[in-house]
């Protein structure tokens, strides 16, 4: 991000928008409280720029995660006016005259202010074996496994997940039952299942009550996903796969 030119800053100083930010300071607050800050309403500013303005100029103790500022690192997910959003890709001007309520992602324990605990997701991700599983002899490191553009297309969409957790936050099943394996982990399992180079089998971890069968197809995960991964589709497709495998035990996929 660039620093703002002085002229822009002055022009902006005439108009401001109010951010109502959830603060939670362990040891100090027993539950989150809202604190209001006025930030310049600048057309190019994302909500994240507003938060950085608060941190840089008004209150250095405000804590939140961010890094790339281009919607690809997945760290700046928060609840903005009730909806899970990437704050670096959500603009202040989308909210008229405000105020804008900014809260941590729903469904996760809050560590501090806008920062939530996502270790649970990482454990889930590991559990679905998100790596290419091969059997038999490996090719030498001089040749690639062939994969046609069509074969690539078959899983490509599910490989676009940036682990931003918006889908988890949007899914009522996950919010009510944290044991649910959840949209992104299942989509990533499908990313490998559908890869023509993969020979693995993730039936044992997906065909469980708290895995694909926990999903009641609310579909909010797909709506929330900023990268068009469509986890809802990934899950429903695996339900069909798993169901067919259960009735036709000899069929693999």
């Amino acid at each position, binding site marked *: 991000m660039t620093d703002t030119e002085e002229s822009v800053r002055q022009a902006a100083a005439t108009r401001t928008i109010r951010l109502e930010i959830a603060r939670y300071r362990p040891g100090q607050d027993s539950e989150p409280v809202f604190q209001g800050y006025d930030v310049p309403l600048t057309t190019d500013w994302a909500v994240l720029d507003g938060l950085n303005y608060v941190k840089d100029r008004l209150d250095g103790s405000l804590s939140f995660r961010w890094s790339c500022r281009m919607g690809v690192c997945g760290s700046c997910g928060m609840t903005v006016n009730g909806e899970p959003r990437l704050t670096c890709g959500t603009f202040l001007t989308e909210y008229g005259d405000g105020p804008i309520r900014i809260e941590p992602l729903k469904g996760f324990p809050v560590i501090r202010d806008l920062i939530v605990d996502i270790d649970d997701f990482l454990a889930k991700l590991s559990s679905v074996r998100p790596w290419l599983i091969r059997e038999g002899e490996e090719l030498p490191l001089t040749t690639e496994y062939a994969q046609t553009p069509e074969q690539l297309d078959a899983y490509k969409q599910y490989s676009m997940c940036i682990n931003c957790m918006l889908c988890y936050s949007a899914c009522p099943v996950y919010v009510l039952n944290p044991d649910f394996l959840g949209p992104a982990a299942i989509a990533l399992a499908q990313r490998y299942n559908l890869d023509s180079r993969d020979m693995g089998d993730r039936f044992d971890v997906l065909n469980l009550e708290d895995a694909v069968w926990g999903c009641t197809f609310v579909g909010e995960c797909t709506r929330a996903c900023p990268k068009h991964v469509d986890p809802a589709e990934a899950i429903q497709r695996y339900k069909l796969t798993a*169901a067919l495998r259960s*009735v036709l035990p000899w069929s693999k996929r």
Partner: protein
Amino acid sequence: MKRTIEPYLWLLFSGGGVAAALVLPVLVLLFGVLMPLGVIDWPTVEHLRALLDNVLVRAALLVVIVLCLFHAAHRIRFTSEELFGIARYDLLIAVLCYGGAIVGGVTGALLLF
């Protein structure tokens, strides 16, 4: 490997969803709304019985009844758990819901055959 009966329940649920979608609206429309309102006349008893005399029709009807009941049972199970946050009683709820569906299915079978 841990076995689960969810895939079978889901197949019944999905089949029921399709069956319910394809045949129920027209049936309620005719028998539940248009005929009672007199918009169209009730068919004669004989005509309807003649339809039911066909074993294929009866079999199809039974399939629709069983599938739709399972569909409803499955959804009611999950929706009640989500709405009221009572997932910890899942086993009990499941027994009630699917039990109800089985009772309904058996009743249908007894009636029709």
